[in-house]
C-alpha cells in the first residue's frame, strides 16, 4: 500500500525544488526567449526595411526608357518623370553622362526576358529604387491595359479558395481539423527534449548522494519513483505553459508585425474523437518515455553514463519522422504498421495518423493499452533497478543482476 501523504510529500518536494531553481527557468525560458529575440530582430529589421522600401518607392527621379513590349503607358511614364528615347544606346549614354538618373530597357516579352535597368550609382541599397520603379511602371501599365484593378489582382494569383469536403454525408475535416490533434505531437517533442535529462537524473541524485538507504527505510521505493514521475508530469505541464505563453502572446498581439502566418484560429476544428485519443496517446507516450528514462537513470551511476541511452530514446522518437510521407500517404505499408505498433515509435506515428484521420479506433485502443501497460511494467522494473542500484553505489547496474538478485525485496 502506498501512503498517500508520503506520495504527496515527494511530489511537493520534487516540484518545489525544481521550480525554485534558477537553472530550471533559464532552461525553460531559453527557447521562448530566443524566439522573442528573433521576433524582435525580425520586427525591427522588417520595420526598417519597410520604411526604406516605402521611401524608395516614393523617391522621384528622372529616367528614360525604350519599350519593345508596347505595354508601357506613355502617360503613366511621363507622370513618373520618364521620357521615351529612340534607342537603348542613347539612354545608356545619358545615364553615363549623368543627364538622367536612370534608363530602363523593356524587352519585347517581359515575362521571359529581364528588364535592363541602368542608373547612377546610389549605393547597394539605394540602387534598388531603379528596379522598383521599372517594375512598378510595368505593373501600372499592364493594369491600365487590362482596365480593371480587380482583374489585375486575379491575374496575379490573388484569388483565394475555401474547400469543403464530405464524408458519409457529413462535412469532413480539412487542415483545420488536423492541426489541433497534431499539436499533441509538438507538445510531446517539446517536453521530451526539454525534460529528458531531468527524467534521466530523477534517481541519480539519491544514488550519487547516498540518500537512498535513508529514504528507502522511510518510504517505499515505488512511492518515491511514482512521486518523481508525477512531479515530472507537473513540471512538464509547467514547461509547456511557460513555452506556450510567450508564443501565444506573440501570435495574438504581434502577428502582423512579426510576419507570423495569419492562421484563422476560429476556423480550427476540435473534433472530440481525435482530441481525446490524442490526449490519451500523449499522456501514455509521456508516461512510457518518463518511466523508461527513469529506469535507465536508476541503472546508471551518473547522468553522464546515462546520456548515450537518452540519445537512443531520442532516435526512436524521431525515427518515424523519416517515414512521415509514407505515414501520410500510405499508412497501410508494413513499415508504418510496424512503427504504429512498436511501443517506442508508436507515440509519434499514432499521433500523426490520429491527426490525419488514418488511425483506426481499434489500433488507437491497442496503442493506448500498450503505452499505459508498458509504462506500468517499466516503472516496476525501474523500482526494482532502483532498489538494487541503491546498494550498488558508483556502479552500473546490470539487468541480469537485477533480475537474478535474490537479495532484493
Amino acid at each position, binding site marked *: 500500500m502506498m501512503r498517500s501523504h508520503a506520495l504527496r510529500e515527494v511530489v511537493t518536494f520534487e516540484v518545489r525544488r525544481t521550480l525554485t531553481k534558477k537553472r530550471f527557468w533559464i532552461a525553460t525560458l531559453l527557447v521562448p526567449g530566443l524566439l522573442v529575440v528573433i521576433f524582435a530582430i525580425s520586427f525591427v529589421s522588417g520595420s526598417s526595411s519597410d520604411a526604406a522600401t516605402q521611401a524608395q518607392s516614393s523617391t522621384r527621379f528622372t529616367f528614360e526608357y525604350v519599350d519593345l513590349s508596347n505595354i508601357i503607358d506613355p502617360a503613366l511614364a511621363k507622370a513618373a518623370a520618364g521620357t521615351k528615347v529612340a534607342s537603348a544606346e542613347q539612354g545608356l549614354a545619358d545615364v553615363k553622362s549623368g543627364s538622367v538618373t536612370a534608363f530602363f530597357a523593356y524587352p519585347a516579352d517581359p515575362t521571359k526576358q529581364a528588364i535592363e535597368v541602368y542608373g547612377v550609382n546610389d549605393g547597394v541599397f539605394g540602387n534598388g529604387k531603379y528596379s522598383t520603379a521599372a517594375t512598378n511602371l510595368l505593373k501600372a501599365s499592364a493594369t491600365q491595359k487590362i482596365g480593371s484593378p480587380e482583374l489585375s489582382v486575379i491575374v496575379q494569383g490573388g484569388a483565394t479558395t475555401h474547400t469543403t469536403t464530405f464524408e458519409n454525408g457529413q462535412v469532413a475535416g480539412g487542415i483545420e481539423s488536423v492541426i489541433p490533434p497534431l499539436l499533441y505531437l509538438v507538445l510531446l517533442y517539446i517536453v521530451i527534449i526539454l525534460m529528458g535529462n531531468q527524467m534521466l537524473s530523477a534517481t541519480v541524485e539519491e544514488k550519487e548522494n547516498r540518500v537512498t538507504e*535513508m529514504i528507502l527505510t522511510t518510504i517505499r521505493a515505488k512511492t518515491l519513483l511514482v512521486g518523481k514521475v508525477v512531479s515530472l508530469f507537473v513540471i512538464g505541464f509547467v514547461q509547456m505553459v511557460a513555452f506556450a505563453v510567450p508564443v501565444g502572446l506573440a501570435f495574438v498581439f504581434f502577428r502582423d508585425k512579426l510576419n507570423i502566418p495569419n492562421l484563422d484560429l476560429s476556423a480550427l476544428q476540435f473534433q472530440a474523437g481525435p482530441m481525446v485519443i490524442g490526449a490519451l496517446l500523449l499522456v501514455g507516450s509521456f508516461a512510457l518515455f518518463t518511466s523508461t528514462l527513469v529506469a535507465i537513470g536508476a541503472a546508471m551511476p551518473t547522468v553522464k553514463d546515462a546520456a548515450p541511452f537518452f540519445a537512443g530514446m531520442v532516435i526512436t522518437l524521431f525515427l518515424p519522422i523519416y517515414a512521415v510521407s509514407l505515414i501520410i500517404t500510405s499508412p497501410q505499408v508494413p513499415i508504418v504498421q510496424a512503427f504504429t505498433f512498436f511501443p517506442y515509435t508508436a507515440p509519434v506515428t499514432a499521433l500523426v495518423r490520429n491527426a490525419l484521420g488514418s488511425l483506426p479506433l481499434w489500433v488507437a485502443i491497442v496503442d493506448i493499452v500498450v503505452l499505459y501497460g508498458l509504462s506500468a511494467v517499466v516503472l516496476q522494473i525501474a523500482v526494482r533497478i532502483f532498489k538494487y542500484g541503491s546498494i550498488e553505489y558508483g556502479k552500473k547496474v546490470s539487468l541480469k543482476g537485477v533480475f537474478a538478485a535474490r*537479495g532484493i525485496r
Partner: protein
Amino acid sequence: MGVMSIAERSTSSDPLVHIEHFGMSFGRTEVIEDLSFEIGRGETFGFLGSNGSGKTTTIRALLGIYQPTRGVLLIDGRVFSPDNGDRLGYLPEERGLYQKESVVDVMTYFGRLKGLGHAPARKWSLAYLERVGIADKATARIDKLSQGQQQKVQLGVTIMNDPELLILDEPTKGFDPVNRRLLMEIIEDQKRAGATVMMVTHQMEEVERLCDRILLLKDGTARAYGTVDEVRAEFGGTRIRVDTDDAVPPSDAYEIVSTEQGRTELEVGNDADTSVILASLVSAGLAVRSFTPTLKSLDDIFIEIYGADAKGVE
C-alpha cells in the same frame, strides 16, 4: 489487519528486534551463515564485527532492503516495512543528503515523510540545529556545510519524530572528538527517552559507555553475545603487568603474553588468585617494582577474536 506503527505496538514485552537463523548469500558467497539474536525494548545493543563481517548486510536485511536467503528478521513482531516505520531512525553507513537543498528544507522533508506536520517538523529542525550549534546554517545548502556539519544534520534527520528504534551504523565516523562527545550525549538522551538503540561501531569506549549488550559477528555467526561483562568473562580473564628487570619464569598459573625491557605482561584465568602469583614471583627471587592486575578490555577481546581481520578497523 491495519498497519500499526512501532510505537503503537510498543507495550508488548516481546523483544523489539528478533532475528532467528538468519542466513544471507550473494551468489556463491555466503555472508551470514546462521545468526540469531534479540534486542529488548529500551536496550542499547552493540553490533560489532570487523569490516566485511556482515553487520551492514544484517541491518539491510532487517530493514527490508535485502531479502534474506533464510531465516526470520522481525521488528516488533513483523517484517519491517516503511509503511509502519514512522518511528524508526536509521543512520546508514553509506549516508548522504540532498546536496543542493537547504538544511531546514531537507530536514522538514524527512520530518514530513515520517508523519510530522510541516510546522512541527520545521520547528523541531530549527531547535535541533540550535542544539548542535549550526542554527546559522539552517538556510544554507547542504553542500556548503563541512563534513562534520553534514553528519550532524544526518543525525538530526535520524532522530526526528522520537524514534522508538534507532539503528546507527558507525554513527561517529567522521566526527572529531568534540562532536563525537556531543553525538554520544544525543544518543544517551534518546536512550533515556526510552529508545531502543542498535549501534554498529568500532569504538570500544563507546560500547563500554553506552551498550547494555553486545554481539560480535565473525564469519557469519555470532562469536560472542551477551552483556559486556558476560563477554568479558567469556573471553577475558585478567592481564597482569609486572614491572621487573628479571626474567619471569614460565608457570602453569599464567601465560606470558609479552616481554619488553623492564615489563612483562601475563594473562591468567578468571579464577586465578593474583596474590598467589605475586607471592610465587617474589619467592622465585624476582625484584618486582610493580604488579598491576587489570580486566581485559573490549579492545583486547576484539583483537583476540578478529586477529588479522581487525587490522583494517578504524
